[in-house]
């Protein structure tokens, strides 16, 4: 409707107050999409912005008849949008606007609070601008004064050129009135238009209204109105509105130049500012203001402002937004660990993201360290034999190059064959070597699972993870316990990857090979298999004898020769059982009051009748039947003798 030719540049009177706006509008009309995109014009009511926006459309279409030009006030746009949504024609709506070459949007101040429309408009703007098509907007206020507008849309609105149209000064108002009279073929006595222009009217529309009244009065009375009559005629018709401050009466101007000097100066400054301010800096400035309002330090963006050439703003803004989001996340995590770190400056500066990550890591590391290896289990106390030689060699290789050669080391074998001893020995050796980055974490799979459950219960899973992540090595005993425990397997999987990738040693033990552990997720199984899988066999008789010798010596000092060999005879499986047997021997020795000798050992072994050569002469007939002696009690006090009859 505005493109019917009534609103054109040649019938728009240019003065100092609107010179910049007209210049910008003409430039846009001459080459839409190539300069000042978008062009945002704002002014008070009745100062010609709708005329100018219409003139742009008209001139652009005159220059290029094939140009698709759409003029639409925002309210109509909203109605159009709602209609499209309600009729299921949303796509057609988008396509219609996205096909426009020159979009003239009036009264955009009505965007306030219309979030859906804003989103849609943002999408349309993105499409149009990306394809170099022109957007022109008019509003009764500056973009930054339109409240409740999506920040991204606001950035688009302010990304091109913003010009305001001021109140015309006296000379321009006279020119406007003369122009109107010429258009309409009106004649007035000298001084009438000048008198009209001196009236304290707020805008051009009111000026036209006053002119209309004078015209009506003149035609009604059928006699010309004089300049002196003007105020009287209008006074009878209307109550004058207060004059805008910038309009001053030349007659009352002080000596030297006339009262519009300041207005003229202001107009020149406006032109100079508009030509001097870079649109990309304006956009960046808006982002800086936004992030500062969010409480972030914006040094990163401010540095970009100082560049001579515009940087990649989209990438810069995205990087800043990502960093800010990450910082918020880090702060949320760190507060769980240490409330005193809430609001720490480091979480407000995207340039210090790495520092913030480190703060979180330190906070996580400040928790209890994971359990370490059992101190007594070292390689020095490990009895080597043929049955565990392969495993021992693997351990030696691991200790020579932790995390490099065999990672993970998976040791499997029957219970009590020294797997845990070996695994902990690695932990102790790494610790003794001050291996970085920290002590080894040594846990049984059961402890691992229990710890995770407790962390889930208390909502401290992240801290629980952090304890393990900082470990210099990870040793998990009896991983077969993880069978069917999916979450634990998941956690171990991620932990394994983290440690493995950072070159930290992982040692696992199990009573069976990875392939034989049921309900173990494949990704974990393949990782277990990916290092070195070694088996430890049940100890041979020689190994058992050596183990007994050591244990007896440790417990009793010197003992009779042959005792260790006697004890080693039964196929006891584990070091644990050996220890238990030694304790049993001690108990029998205590009970019988005799030193550790073959007889005591025979009684301790109990279940196996020793060869006659070892049967001593019984001193106490009550215990003659060794099979009746129950020795599996932890203390002597609670011992029960059972008469089997």
């Amino acid at each position: 409707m505005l493109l019917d030719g009534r609103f054109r540049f040649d019938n728009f009177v240019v003065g100092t107050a609107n010179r910049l706006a007209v210049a910008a509008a003409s430039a846009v009309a001459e080459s839409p999409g190539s300069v000042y995109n978008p062009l945002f014009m704002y002014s008070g009511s009745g100062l010609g912005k709708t005329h100018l926006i219409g003139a742009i459309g008209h001139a652009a279409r005159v220059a290029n008849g094939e140009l698709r030009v759409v003029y639409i006030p925002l309210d109509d746009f909203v109605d159009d949008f709602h209609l499209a949504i309600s009729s299921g024609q949303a796509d057609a709506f988008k396509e219609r606007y996205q096909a426009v070459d020159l979009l003239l949007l009036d009264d955009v101040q009505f965007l306030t609070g219309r979030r859906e429309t804003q989103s849609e408009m943002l999408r349309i703007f993105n499409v149009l601008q990306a394809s170099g098509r022109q957007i022109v907007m008019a509003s009764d206020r500056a973009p930054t004064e339109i409240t409740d507008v999506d920040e991204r849309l606001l950035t688009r609105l302010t990304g091109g050129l913003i010009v305001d149209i001021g109140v015309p000064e006296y000379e321009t108002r006279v020119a406007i009135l003369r122009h109107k009279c010429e258009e309409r073929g009106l004649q007035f006595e000298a001084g009438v238009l000048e008198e009209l222009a001196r009236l304290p009217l707020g805008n051009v529309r009111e000026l036209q209204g006053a002119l209309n009244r004078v015209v009506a009065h003149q035609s009604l009375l059928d006699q010309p109105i004089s300049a002196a009559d003007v105020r009287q005629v209008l006074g009878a018709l209307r109550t004058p509105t207060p004059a805008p401050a910038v309009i001053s009466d030349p007659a009352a101007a002080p000596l030297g130049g006339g009262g519009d000097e300041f207005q003229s100066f202001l107009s020149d400054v406006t032109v100079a500012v508009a030509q001097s301010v870079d649109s990309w800096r304006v956009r960046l400035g808006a982002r800086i203001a936004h992030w500062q309002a969010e409480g972030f330090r914006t040094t990163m963006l401010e540095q970009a402002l100082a560049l001579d050439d515009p940087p990649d703003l989209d990438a810069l803004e995205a990087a800043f937004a990502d960093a800010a989001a990450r910082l918020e996340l880090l702060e949320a995590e760190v507060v769980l660990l240490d409330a005193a770190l809430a609001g720490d400056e480091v979480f407000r500066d995207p340039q210090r993201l790495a520092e913030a990550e480190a703060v979180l890591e330190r906070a996580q590391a400040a928790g209890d360290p994971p359990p370490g290896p059992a101190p007594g289990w070292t390689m020095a106390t490990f009895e080597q034999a043929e049955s565990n030689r392969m495993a021992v060699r693997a351990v030696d290789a691991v200790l020579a190059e932790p995390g490099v050669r065999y990672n993970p080391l998976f040791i499997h074998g029957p219970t009590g064959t020294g797997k845990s001893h070996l695994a902990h020995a690695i932990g102790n050796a790494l610790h003794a070597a001050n291996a970085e980055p920290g002590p080894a974490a040594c846990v049984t799979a059961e402890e691992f699972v229990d710890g995770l459950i407790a962390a889930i219960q208390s909502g401290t899973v992240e801290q629980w993870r952090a304890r393990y992540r900082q470990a210099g090595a990870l040793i998990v005993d009896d991983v077969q316990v993880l069978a069917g425990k999916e979450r634990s397997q998941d956690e171990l999987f991620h932990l394994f990857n983290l440690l493995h990738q950072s070159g930290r040693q992982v040692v696992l033990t199990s009573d069976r090979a990875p392939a034989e552990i049921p309900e173990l997720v494949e990704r974990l199984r393949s990782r277990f298999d990916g290092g070195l899988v070694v088996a430890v066999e049940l100890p041979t008789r020689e190994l058992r004898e050596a183990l007994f010798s050591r244990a007896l010596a440790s417990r009793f000092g010197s003992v009779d020769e042959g005792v260790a060999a006697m004890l080693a005879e039964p196929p006891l499986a584990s070091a644990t059982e050996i220890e238990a047997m030694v304790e049993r021997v001690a108990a029998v020795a205590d009970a019988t009051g005799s030193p550790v000798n073959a007889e005591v050992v025979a009684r301790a072994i109990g279940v196996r009748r020793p060869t006659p050569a070892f049967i001593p002469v019984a001193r106490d007939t009550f215990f003659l039947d060794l099979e009746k002696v129950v020795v599996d009690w932890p203390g002597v006090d609670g011992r029960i003798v059972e008469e089997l009859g």
Partner: protein
Amino acid sequence: MSIVNYAAREITCKIVYYGPGRSGKTTNLHYIYGQVPAERRGQMVSLATQTDRTLFFDFLPLDLGTISGFTTRFQLYTVPGQVYYATTRNLVLQGADGVVFVADSQRRQLAENIESLQDLHANLASQGVDARTVPLVLQYNKQDLPREMIMDASELDDELNFRGVPAHVGDALHGRGVFETLRGISELVLRKLTATADAGAGR
């Protein structure tokens, strides 16, 4: 000093009127004050004291409103022209975005004009500022005086305007040339925005 603050959407220009004593600097400000609508100007402050150590200058803040989305303010200062107020002059000059040199066109004041102009350059140099980079316009004031008493613009140009900066003839008492001068310096200052590519996120 930053002129434009993109983050706060503010433009603030500090313009200093420099020149020998009684050349008409304060008169310039008074005239501007009289022309600017009341809501656009702040209180004009004139500080006077008897000791050198206290500030002695005129200050007129102008609020030009929102221009291209920027809240635009001009701060106009005068320095005390008298030779013995050297410290104050240097202080007021600090951070100036532009300088208006108001010369007294009277023939007998030529030496004072030259001395003051040299003083301006010396003060800028003492602040580590290259005088050639500071926007500067000249105003040859008091051109309303009888011809025989004054030098004309071309004579003054020969004597004072060795940098070839914009010069305006003026009669500040009656307003002639006052706004032309202000307009001239403002445009120079604002044009420098693009040339300097100031970071301007905070002053």
